[in-house]
Every structure is written in structure tokens, then in C-alpha cells.
């Protein structure tokens, strides 16, 4: 039997790979990809706990599923606006490197 701990450890590993990507990558699109990985790791966690809760209580736990759905919706919104921003910046500055997006710097 696969136990809850397997899913939790896997989710932690993927989340931390995502964190590593966010810290290390220069390209802002790559950073966004890493953020997607992190959101997916969160979803693995949520659904693993959803399974756990449902199994423990014997009734289908709706809140876990709704939580996961909202995470996916938020990820979609984030990707749409984030990529639009990156493209918009790219057209002005011809660069997608996150460190060069410093127009607001005083």
C-alpha cells in the first residue's frame, strides 16, 4: 500500500525543486514555469489529504476538492497575467531577464 507519507515527501521534493528554480533562474518565463511546479506540488498535497480525510471519515470530503480547484483556477489566472506582463516588458526592453526589470528602481 502506498501511504500518505510517500505523497507528502514527493510533494515536498517537487515544491523545493520549484523553489530552487525560482531562486536560480534568470529568465522570467522559466521562473513562471517553476512557480507552476510549486503550485502542482501544493495540489498533490491537497489531494493526498483529501484522500486521507475521505478515507478517515467515510464521506466524500468536498472542501479538499474545492481547494484544489481554486488552486488550478489561480494558477491559470497567474499564468495568463504573468505571461502577458512578461511579453509587454519584452516589447519595451527587449529582455526577459528578471533582474533587468528594474524600471521602478529609484
Amino acid at each position, binding site marked *: 500500500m502506498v501511504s500518505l507519507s510517500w505523497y507528502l515527501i514527493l510533494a515536498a521534493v517537487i515544491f523545493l525543486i520549484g523553489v530552487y528554480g525560482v531562486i536560480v533562474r534568470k529568465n522570467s518565463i522559466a521562473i513562471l514555469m517553476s512557480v507552476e511546479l510549486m503550485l502542482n506540488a501544493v495540489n498533490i498535497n491537497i489531494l493526498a489529504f483529501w484522500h486521507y480525510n475521505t478515507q478517515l471519515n467515510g464521506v466524500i470530503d468536498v472542501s479538499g476538492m474545492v481547494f484544489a480547484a481554486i488552486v488550478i483556477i489561480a494558477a*491559470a489566472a497567474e499564468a495568463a497575467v504573468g*505571461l502577458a506582463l512578461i*511579453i509587454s516588458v519584452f516589447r519595451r526592453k527587449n529582455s526577459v531577464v528578471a533582474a533587468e526589470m528594474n524600471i521602478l528602481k529609484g
Partner: protein
Amino acid sequence: MLNQWLYIGIFVVISVFLPGVAILLARILSPKKPNAIKNSVYECGVETFDKTWIQFRIQYYLYALVFLIFDVETVFLFPFAVAYNQVPLFMVMEAIIFIAILMGGFLYIWRKGALTWR
């Protein structure tokens, strides 16, 4: 349920395997006589210039963006559609409000011209 997914998984493996093996076989059977002109990029006889991976117009991105939003909207209406027969009218109205809010955005981008190919 897992059994159903198992079948899907096997089917995925098979449907990757069949064309893969066919291509591999053909690769072994077919002659191999490459030369520089044969291997050059096809561009109607014109010498190719610059890199292929040039930039493309923004319109494609706009359509993909609108698609993403509507895709997400539709996907999360599916559970509601399954439950449709078991919920009263006012709950159906909630789902209609859900659609109506997004239709407002749809009308806005329509007026703005994001849906027009330029």
C-alpha cells in the same frame, strides 16, 4: 476506478508503441544516402536566412489567453453539469451568474478588438 485508468495507461503505451515501432522498422529498411543539398532546409529554393526561431505576432498569444480562461471556466462547470438534475433552480441561477460574469469580460474584449485577427 484504478482498473479503468490502468486500461487507459496501457492504451497510451500501446498507441505510442505502435507508431514508434513502425517508424523504427522503416528507418532500418530505408536507404540512407544523405547529402548537403538534400538535407538543407526547404524554403522554396531560396537560400535560408537568419534563424528559424524568430518572433511571432502577439495575436496567437491573445487567442491562447482567451482560450485558457474559457477552458478553465468550462472545466469547472462540468461537475455542476453532472449535478444538474439534483439541484434546485436557484442553484442553477448561480451557475448562470458564473457564466454571465465571464460573458461580461468576453463582450469587453470583443469591443476592444482582441478577437479580431489583424
